[in-house]
């Protein structure tokens, strides 16, 4: 039976009320989305054969997790990251919200950065920023529930050209609209729309990052 206008409004307003019991603000939900994408990257490292340690010091397992709310320098603070160790001794680190130096020498934020562990260690020892040449994969997270505007796509293309287009991935929960998707389809950086953890697009991105890590292992 068809809903009346009043019933429809009441149902949607009740849904908004339910959302408000969990949703606090956009910044916190964006942080949580980035952290959720870190879990996808961790699964990717495991699928590539990695043994993953969630750590704050690179040696022992973290007793609790501390993530950045804003982009920061990899070498400052004791933030949580993932250390993935592979057969043969190769290692990558997966960080949230760190600056990486692009091809031009300018710093860019990587929401999720998969880095050669030696590059991350070099950053900590020398208090210098990791370089994009030793970035294995990066994810730009946009917690949009409706399709992002075209500008998001343009900014991603700029970021990808700095970091290495094939290393970069854009992810957001909404279905991509008729403007941003054709733009990104013509560029080598991958875009995964409708990316919500536990859904097929998350599996696709996981497989994509797995392959990036495997290629890196085989190349080096």
């Amino acid at each position, binding site marked *: 039976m068809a809903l009346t206008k009043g019933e429809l409004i009441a149902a949607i307003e009740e849904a908004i009320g339910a*959302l408000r019991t969990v*949703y606090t603000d956009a910044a916190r939900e964006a942080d949580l989305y980035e*952290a959720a994408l870190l879990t996808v990257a961790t699964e990717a490292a495991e699928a590539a054969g990695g043994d993953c340690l969630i750590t704050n010091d690179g040696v022992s397992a973290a007793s609790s997790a501390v993530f950045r709310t804003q982009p920061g320098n990899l070498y400052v603070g004791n933030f949580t990251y993932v250390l993935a160790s592979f057969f043969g001794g190769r290692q990558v680190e997966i960080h949230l919200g760190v600056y990486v130096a692009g091809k031009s020498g300018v710093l860019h934020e990587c929401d999720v950065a998969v880095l050669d562990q030696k590059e991350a260690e070099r950053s900590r020892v020398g208090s210098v920023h990791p370089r994009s040449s030793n970035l294995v994969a990066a994810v730009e997270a946009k917690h949009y529930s*409706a399709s992002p505007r075209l500008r998001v796509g343009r900014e991603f293309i700029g970021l990808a050209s700095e970091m290495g287009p094939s290393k970069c991935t854009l992810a957001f929960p909404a279905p991509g609209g008729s403007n941003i998707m054709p733009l990104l389809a013509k560029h080598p950086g991958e875009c995964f729309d409708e990316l919500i953890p536990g859904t097929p697009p998350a599996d696709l991105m996981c497989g994509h990052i797995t392959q990036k890590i495997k290629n890196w292992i085989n190349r080096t």
Partner: protein
Amino acid sequence: MVQGSAEVVDEILRNLDRELPDIAAQIREEIARGRMVKGSKLPERVRQDRQGALTAQRLGRIGENELAEVPYTDDESLAILCDTLLTLARSLAANRRALLNLLVDHGIQSGHVTFAQPDETQTAEPTSLQVEGETGRAEVMFGRVKGLLGPAREEVGSWH
């Protein structure tokens, strides 16, 4: 077709402006943008109107691969609104579940995640999240939102 869907969208967006302003902004932007289509995919009536205007000024024909935007219908706008809220609800629950699984799978006993500013000169206090409790609440919320919006969504139909 939903009777009065334009009024429903207007009223809900006014409510969202108060309750979830950033989500209201995303929906308004998406609706205002319209759908981009190729000339060959323009709805017939729209195509005739636009072609008529071009012809009147001798500006040629609309090519098959030319790009144009078509406004969303009122029902499509309502569908976008419902889909956005559903996507948000699903994402809030799934993000927390993914984080909880990471903590459990890797033996992080505290079950807490803290978000802190990287720069020590910043004044904002770190915020801590009890992930298990948050996940449970979010999943209950998602079930509720799905139950409430599902019937509305079915009535509106697809906008893709």
